[in-house]
């Protein structure tokens, strides 16, 4: 990679975890590098760099997207939320607590991405069915668990909460 397309010649404004950020970056700087290297947000993980593993999943205007595939110019004026910004939100906590309860994690490296994807799906469709939640997981790989815990989590989350 040449250093030219990362020359910081673009004014980037976007919302990160509720805060408006203004920075000069190269238009082709990857969002994942902006988050991890520039902002020190290590919640999104790098696993494949080509959008296949889902470990770097963030929310872009509410949709779950791999941050390794987003370039700086593509987030101009948008809202980005990482796992760091989701932690305090009840929808995320419901997902995280279910992952804990069902022992759905081992090394945990995939979990920020998985929890972010599930939270996005549940935020977009609070009454999402099991099938819809399974579909939301299509971009997230886990190598440790064999997904049995995650199957339980999805059953758990797809059941509408009693007060809904």
């Amino acid at each position, binding site marked *: *990679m*040449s*250093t030219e397309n*990362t020359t910081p010649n673009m004014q980037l404004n976007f919302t990160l975890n509720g805060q408006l950020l203004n920075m000069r970056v190269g238009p082709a700087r990857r969002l994942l*590098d902006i988050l*991890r*290297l520039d902002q*020190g947000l*290590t*919640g999104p*993980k*790098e*696993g*494949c*760099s*080509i959008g*296949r*593993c889902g*470990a770097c999943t963030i929310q872009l205007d509410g949709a779950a997207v791999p941050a390794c595939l987003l370039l700086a110019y593509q987030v101009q004026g948008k809202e980005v939320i990482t*796992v*760091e910004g989701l*932690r305090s939100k009840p929808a995320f906590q419901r997902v*995280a*607590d279910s*992952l*804990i*309860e069902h*022992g759905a*994690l*081992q*090394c*945990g*490296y*995939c*979990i*920020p991405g998985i*929890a972010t994807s599930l939270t996005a799906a549940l935020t977009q469709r609070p009454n999402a069915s099991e099938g819809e939640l*399974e579909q939301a*997981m*299509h971009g*997230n*790989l*886990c*190598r*440790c*668990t*064999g*997904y*049995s*815990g*995650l*199957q339980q989590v999805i059953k758990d989350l797809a059941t509408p909460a009693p007060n809904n």
Partner: protein
Amino acid sequence: MNNVPTAVPLDQKHFAERWNARPDSTEKAYGLQQYPTDELHWPGLLHGRILRSAWPHAHILHIDLSQARSLPGVRAVVCAEDIPGTNSYGIIFRDQPVFCTDRVRFLGDAIAAVAADSPEIAAHALTLIKVVYEPLPNIGDSQQALASAAPRLHPDGNLLDSSRLGHGDIDAGFAQCSYIVDRRYSTPRQMHVFMETEGGVAIPEQDGSLTFRVGCQSGHRDRDQLADILGLPQHKVRVIGLSTGGGFGGKDELTMQPAAGLLALKTGRPVRIHYDRQESTRAGIKRHPIQMFARTGCDAEGRLIAHQLHAVLDTGAYASLGPAVLTNFSDHAAAPLYRIPHVEVQGQLVYTNNSVAGAFRGFGGNQATFAVESQLDKLALAAGLSPAELRRRNLRTPDDDGVEGQSQQMPCHPNTLLNAAIASPLWQINPADAEHGRWLSGVGMALGAQGNGLGNGLPDSGGASLRLTKQGHIQLAFGFIEYGQGVVAAVQALACEALGCSAEDLDIRLGDSDGPDSGPTSASRSTVIATEALRRLRDDWQQQLIQLGKSLLGDHRALCTGAGGLWYDEPKGKRAISYQALASGVKDLSLPALKIHFDFPTGPDAQPKGRYLQLLIATVARVRVDRFTGSVKVSHLHHIAAGGKVIHPPSYRGQIEGAAVMGMGMALLEDVPMHNGEYQLDNLDAYLIPTLADAPAQQVDVIETIVAGDQYPVRGIGELGIEAISPALMAAIQDATGIRPCDLPARPAALLAAMTAAEENLP
């Protein structure tokens, strides 16, 4: 014995008392866990990258670093000349260069490394390093390696190691057989695909020492090798193996540590290296691809008489743990679960210009079990017996010695697992599903055995330390690495039970080479070491605390260790003194502190062979095969595992299920194809691993009871779940389609072609 062990479902209902969340699960679920590759906060941090060979096999004529060195933002470029110590590493033989000087042997070979202000500058600098090569002929596969005209990849030739084991007279054995089956089998170059690729940071300290915070599997062994490479005394190198994003054997060897260490020494600044997935594919360890030929025979009653298995393992360009994999492979290839009077196993481990193969969960055993169990099914068909009945007539018992006459400790009679497998509900296929339009359903099973420990008399020891801190915490340290398997959960549960304390009293420290050496985090050995260490420390610890408590209290009533502190024996339920009060009552130097180091249990034999502590598993699989595409959907897996006492139920279950799906990947999906030493893929777009959509419904049943007299009620189960999955899946495919795939992965195209050919050949 009227006490027949039974298999109990490993679920929350049956294990309610022991079922609790892993201690690290909140941090992980909330994305707070810091991994080795998250170490980005170090002041002055530099980003390192490693230049890999452009050729699978070549002479290096010239290396020119000058242009790279003069690129603004580059802080150091290092090559072999910059290594103060020895330019080689490897767990068994140090035959792999840190940086190549005159010759490269595979595309993952390292030539130089760069540290720069940013990853982009480091990557750009690599393109400015000029290397002049003279390409050499490649050895692209293991058969080529053994040809007499093949170029020699190492001074002693291309045959790195060979194995030969068995007993009886194989020719005489086959002469007595009524039925003989033979078949060629092959298994793929599977990739570990830990979600966190190899990485970490090397940090120079004020006193000239170096601290590594990395993903690894043994801080101590890494330290020993790094000290030699860096030309530093061992006490000036500290390796902290942080909780890492998966290992599975793939982080057993050194990875980025030598390059990061050299760059940190040269620049005096912290240097971080994180392989991208392409580099991980190119340079990382793989599972050995194995070509096998097996011949197995029985008499008219289905009693096994003779079994022969010849194999060639492609170990790639360097030895790594290849010789140990060959040994474990050979132990399993001898069909250790069955009594067979005439057995012959021959294995060859060969160097090629392919990816280096080494440690990977199962460690050669699961590949051998695939061939052995497949042979038994084939033989059962020939002899007119059910696969279960053929096995029942030949199973070894816990009273039997191992294949080579060695002592071994089976947890229970394998018949118990066989019976549970036969009784599995998975065999009851709804008739409507059995042949449903495009879809054919089938069920199959297989048995497997797996040992704990390094085995075969290799030096294998473990240690631990235990002390009361000034703050009143019980600090328990092991050298193990937490890489997802849940050793932190097992240690916590074992410590609470042995020391009588609560989880809140404990301060568990893992993976620091400045702490106790527990041996490598491999070979399913950690839980056994932790159990043994606590058993040996327990009495001394309790005595010291109680004595201290009595002297502080000036009270002679009987005490015992408990949650939060010491408690009175009488009256019950009254705490005498807290651990905090105990700790603050004495001078620092008098605080109880114990250390222990001991050998891994290898049984009574003077010359141990194989692995003494054995575990058993039966796996039943149900599949649906698409007659239109040849694709296989694994709908259900049912495991019956005999691995001793369940210490932490969710981790035990997770290990069995996770290993099974990893094995399912090897059986159906995964391979890194290479052509003349060139990788045919480099990332997860072409290397597919199972997704949630591929995941079967799984049930795990456990047999906790062990045979009377077995001194080791707790075993390590990290590899057990991968042992029998491949042959169970192939048996299920055969049940559904009549076709028995013998080349893994069993991909749709090959299965479809075989199904079509079989249909066309029907009369």
